[in-house]
């Protein structure tokens, strides 16, 4: 999982550098570059193409004609409603939202509190605590699996939405705290001092001054975290057992066992399952990219 972006700040765009062609570019090398790029891009798009084409066919037709000679008159959209209802993709998607939205809100809120404390106060534990959060973002999940499984069982939270919400909130806090703390550190102190002189309480400084200024980082972080939590598979595998509670990732993984030889149905289900993150990506692309680079700007 790529959720290891490291200690961070938002990268501020500055002037573009690179080979601005002042001299006449050499034609042949330019063409070769384009050709190579087009081939590589085509390879990169092939999996998407394979999935899209498969989702509108039937397994029998694919077996009969092979992948590359689809019978265009036999194309069908039936796989999508079948995945939505028979394969319970609608249910799984709903579960994913039920888990993702509260986790996202909780982890962002809690992280903003700890980030504020670590960024805006000077106290002995500030740095050790900060690095505890940073280290936490790089842990292998496996070190937490068994105790968390046991604790959720003891608290009777095993096989509930609550279990997933709690663990996502806790685990994502490390990364969010790190990013928000570094962002809050860049806010000039004058603003805060002015407010303090006016008799502003610490909580109001957090809520009414720092938080509004942190919104750009929050937006980028929220976009990224939405994708990460929504796409989690491991915790769903460990903490959810009931078919009715599975999020889309665990649900799709289960589909394959159930409809082993119906690739069109499985692919159609996967494509539906991708829609929410695709939606986020299409409309919040800038934030998503910014989020991914949040960690590396230093």
């Amino acid at each position: 999982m790529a959720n290891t972006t490291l200690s961070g700040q938002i990268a501020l765009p500055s002037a573009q550098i690179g080979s601005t062609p002042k001299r006449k570019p050499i034609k042949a090398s330019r063409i070769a570059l384009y050709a190579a790029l087009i081939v590589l891009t085509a390879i990169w798009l092939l999996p998407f193409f394979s999935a899209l084409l498969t989702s509108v066919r039937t397994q029998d037709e694919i077996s009969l004609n092979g992948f590359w000679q689809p019978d265009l008159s036999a194309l069908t959209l039936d796989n999508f409603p079948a995945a939505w209802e028979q394969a319970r993709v609608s249910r799984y998607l709903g579960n994913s939202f039920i888990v993702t939205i509260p986790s996202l809100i909780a982890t962002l809120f809690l992280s903003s509190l700890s980030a504020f404390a670590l960024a805006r106060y000077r106290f002995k534990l500030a740095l050790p605590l900060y690095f505890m959060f940073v280290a936490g973002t790089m842990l292998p999940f496996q070190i937490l699996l068994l105790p968390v499984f046991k604790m959720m069982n003891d608290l009777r939270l095993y096989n509930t939405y609550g279990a997933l919400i709690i663990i996502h909130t806790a685990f994502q806090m490390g990364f969010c705290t790190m990013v928000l703390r570094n962002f809050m550190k860049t806010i000039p102190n004058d603003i805060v001092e002015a407010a303090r002189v006016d008799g502003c309480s610490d909580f109001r400084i957090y809520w009414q001054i720092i938080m509004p200024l942190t919104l750009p980082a929050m937006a980028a972080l929220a976009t990224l975290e939405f994708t990460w939590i929504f796409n989690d598979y491991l915790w769903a595998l460990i903490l959810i057992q009931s078919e009715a509670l599975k999020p889309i990732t665990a649900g799709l993984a289960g589909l394959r066992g159930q409809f082993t030889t119906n690739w069109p149905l499985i692919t159609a289900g996967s494509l539906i399952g991708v829609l929410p993150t695709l939606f986020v990506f299409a409309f919040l692309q800038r934030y998503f990219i910014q989020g991914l680079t949040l960690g590396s700007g230093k």
Partner: protein
Amino acid sequence: MATLAATVTQRPDRAGKRQKINWTPYLFLLVPLAVYATWIIFPMLFSFYLSLTSWDGVSPIPSPDQLSLGNYDRLLGLPLNGANPPDRDFVTAFNNNVTWVIVFLTVPTTLGLGLAMIFNSNIRGARWFKISFYAPLILSFVVIGTIWMWIYEPRAGILNSVIVGASQALASVFPFITPLERGPGWLADRNLALASILGAAVWRQVGYVMILYLAGLKNLDPSLVEAAKVDGASPWQLFRKVIFPLLAPITTVVLVISVIDSLRSFDLVQVMTPLGGASNVLANFMYIEAFNNYQFGYGASIAVVLLSISLVIIIPYLYVSVRKELDY
């Protein structure tokens, strides 16, 4: 980018008075730290304890007087009670992780940097090309695994269709080539399973590295690059002697991420080869031992070993970051 001078919001002390502890930051930290300590710190320590037990996940957890290094002995072949070899499945998983690290440190990094360099020049259509490379990042590993399993499907999948089709086309032109009846088994083939999974993993990782390098390139000081150009540096010299050294901080982050992600790999292996075996990595080996074989104690010891390996990267990285932070 320099962080602005560390900010102090503590109230200035009145002269002569001893400084009192300001409890306000701890108040803000109270709830987040409680959550973090309960669900991250405590479980981590608890895993260490479990790794010394023979817990099966169902019966009560063994008490402290029943602890032993037995799990580690079985896993690593410690010289405790005579020489025994390490667990063969562990060796397989460990080697696969090493392969994963090597591939991640070389392939997506080079491709990602190359693509970032290309897209950073004003090439036409860069925006659309770029999207094809970072689109895989929004997919879950389950979806990536599913899509690629179908690509690797031995009979009708896209890959073998191409291979078999190409071999037949070649055979019709060159009579000395025998056309292939069937392509490789890919995921079903012990020798190809890991490479097949890595194909899917690299497909995703390239876009990530590219994004990181693109951000780094945007932050480079254009005057340095201009100066080198004025001095008549060739494009390769410009890259080799100016741009790449300036990207060093990004490269560090990319390398650290590559190793950490390799050690964390689980989902793809679990989805694409659910039965495990030849393609297992440590994370899956741990999961299988604990949840399929009910050997929670043994599983915990695998997790501890995996964590220890990760620390080889985490600790130096933290050390450097701490020193940087103290410089401000």
